[in-house]
């Protein structure tokens, strides 16, 4: 077949969509804004629920792409022109890419934790995000406080930038809870003398093996869970972090000192999702993500002929969700192009 499909966004959803389309016999071109494909999974160390290495999932895709998918990195899209029969995508470097169908896979960004002011990210050095922690894991770094000591107690905060009118995001980012449980276990394994406290409102263990992971975190690793959303973090004179929270199950306010605080930052629609969605004239929901043609029956279609959506650009998703969704999108494209 000579039909050309352009996939915008080289994260795992975009990668998987491009491979599936290539395997179905289409010319698949993957446009990626940054220097390399792989998206956020490049920054992760081990994946929930079974703590398998993130690299394995990337390699699985990368190997299958080789020789089959044309990848253009550093592809900064400045204009998309829709004609009767095709699309013309103009890159900043002047290159023009033509497509018979487009798959938008522009994904998410992590909530910028600076914006949750009362948690002190970017002000108190011992406050970091889950992404910062995961990076330390990936780089094989020791988990130490800013002062270089082994933390005696670490706090993990759920719902940072999610389920929060003040942060501007009312929605749940879905995967942070299980990420928190995973990271709690990883910390406990690395630092057996360190206490870990997770501060949550709900524990969203929605996927297969998630609830069992939570059970393991308690039974095998002694992770503590306190049902109370963090209200405020302050810095003590020694650089440790003072937490103000309510233990809602006990019905009492609680002040707790931790040596390191980890913020589970949620999802927001990425800059690319906002820009490409606008360029194509796609509708956005109140939550800022792209709204597909039908949220039950046609989650990969849009109201624009030839434009398809997949991955986190239509809402927070796990890696499993994204890969499955990408393959589904590919079948929809194939259906359209036949």
């Amino acid at each position, binding site marked *: 077949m000579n039909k050309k499909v352009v996939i915008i966004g080289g994260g795992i959803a975009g990668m998987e969509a491009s491979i599936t389309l290539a395997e179905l016999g289409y010319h698949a071109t993957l446009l990626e804004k940054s220097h390399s494909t792989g998206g956020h999974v490049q920054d992760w160390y081990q994946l929930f629920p079974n703590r398998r290495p993130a690299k394995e999932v990337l390699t699985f895709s990368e190997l299958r792409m080789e020789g089959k998918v044309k990848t253009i990195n550093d592809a900064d899209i400045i204009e998309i022109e829709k004609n009767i029969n095709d699309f013309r995508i103009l890159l900043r470097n002047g290159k023009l890419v033509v497509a018979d169908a487009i798959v938008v896979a522009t994904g998410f960004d992590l909530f910028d934790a600076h914006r949750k002011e009362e948690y002190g990210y970017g*002000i*108190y050095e011992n406050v970091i995000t889950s992404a910062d922690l995961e990076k330390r894991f990936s780089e094989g770094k020791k988990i130490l406080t800013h002062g270089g000591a082994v933390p005696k107690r670490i706090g993990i905060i759920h719902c940072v930038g999610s389920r929060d009118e003040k942060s501007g995001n009312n929605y749940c980012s879905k995967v942070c809870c299980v990420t928190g449980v995973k990271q709690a276990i990883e910390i406990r394994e690395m630092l057996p003398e360190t206490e870990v406290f997770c501060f949550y409102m709900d524990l969203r263990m929605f996927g297969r093996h998630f609830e069992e992971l939570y059970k393991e975190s308690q039974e095998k690793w002694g992770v503590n869970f306190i049902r109370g959303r963090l209200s405020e973090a*302050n810095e*003590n*004179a020694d650089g440790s972090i003072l937490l103000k929270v309510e233990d809602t199950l006990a019905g009492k306010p609680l002040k707790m000192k931790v040596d390191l605080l980890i913020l589970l930052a949620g999802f927001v629609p990425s800059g690319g999702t906002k820009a490409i969605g606008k360029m194509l004239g796609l509708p956005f929901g109140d939550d800022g993500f792209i709204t597909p043609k039908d949220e039950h029956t046609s989650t990969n279609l849009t109201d624009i002929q030839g434009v398809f959506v997949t991955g986190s650009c239509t809402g927070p998703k796990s890696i499993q969700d994204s890969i499955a969704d990408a393959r589904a999108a590919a079948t929809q494209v194939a259906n359209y192009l036949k």
Partner: protein
Amino acid sequence: MKVEGKRLIWKDYQKEIAEDKFFYVRSCIRQTFFPGSEWAFLKIMKEVLGKDVYENPAHTTCTGIGYHSDIVPFDTTMTVVARQFALMTEAGYQNLVPSCITSFGLYTEVMETWKHFPEEEKKVREYLKKATGREFEVPKNLAHASDIIYKFRKQIAAKGKYRLINKTTGEPLKVVEHIGCHYAKMFPSKGVGGAEYPYVLTGMVEDWGGEVIDYPERRHCCGFGFRQYLVKANRGFSVACSKKKFESMAPYKPDMIITNCPGCPMFLDRWQYVISEMEGKTYGEDGHGIPVFTYEEVAGLILGFDPWDLGLQLHQVPTEPLLNKIGIPYDPFKKYLGKNGEDIGIPIKPSMLNTQ
């Protein structure tokens, strides 16, 4: 701690503060406990900065304390507020400057309520017309008096005689800045710097040479709590809140506290005296306590106003140690004299607090 992190947040909370032509409304508490501060504010505005500040003597309390004691219904409070607006409108002004933080919070709350519930504004217009015959326009700009001093802090620094620096060591003074709860907690976008890292006092301190201390209980209420202080049986709550703050700030060895709400400096000042009597404990150096100031007093000191004109003699925690640190001269014999220099006696010394 990375102060640059705070600067990013401060950028997001800039607010419109009028340049000139202010309608000034006074504060029940500030007049009662810090009258020199209102005098200083007006002197600075008119004589130092050359601004037009107008006061209509027919203005009254905004009823804020009564409202927050829940004895004055919201309809009554809104209508009294509307009357203040009417006096402002009639005088041809559009920029309202309250001296009190509770007032500032209340005016903001009333205007926001009317935005969400326009029928409330309509109702209040009718009430005001019926009760007084007056009509009003909502202020175009509402800024607290501390916002104005903040806006002109650099000009004040330029004309200043003194800086918030320890003249012996050359080091900036360590300053605790305490913001009134009703300044930004209700409507963070209406406070310079927002609710979490307010900048209105920090900006003054920084431009006047001092260094702001961050301590864990920085945002904690001083404990006024309206009914929690006004009724004797409840006062334990009030002193406990202030004590919490003192215990938290003490390790950072602050030289002084600066506040923008009129009630807070009274409480932070008097509760140190009370704690010293109740528990024998004093904060600060040599049993002197940590001196507490209104921002008007600090601005006045910077500009070289006489401390006893500013009203520092009405502080229970002595301010002389701080004046000495800065190198501001004062005549100890003039401290307790009356308006015409008459001798009206001196207060008894407290048993624990070292008032020299």
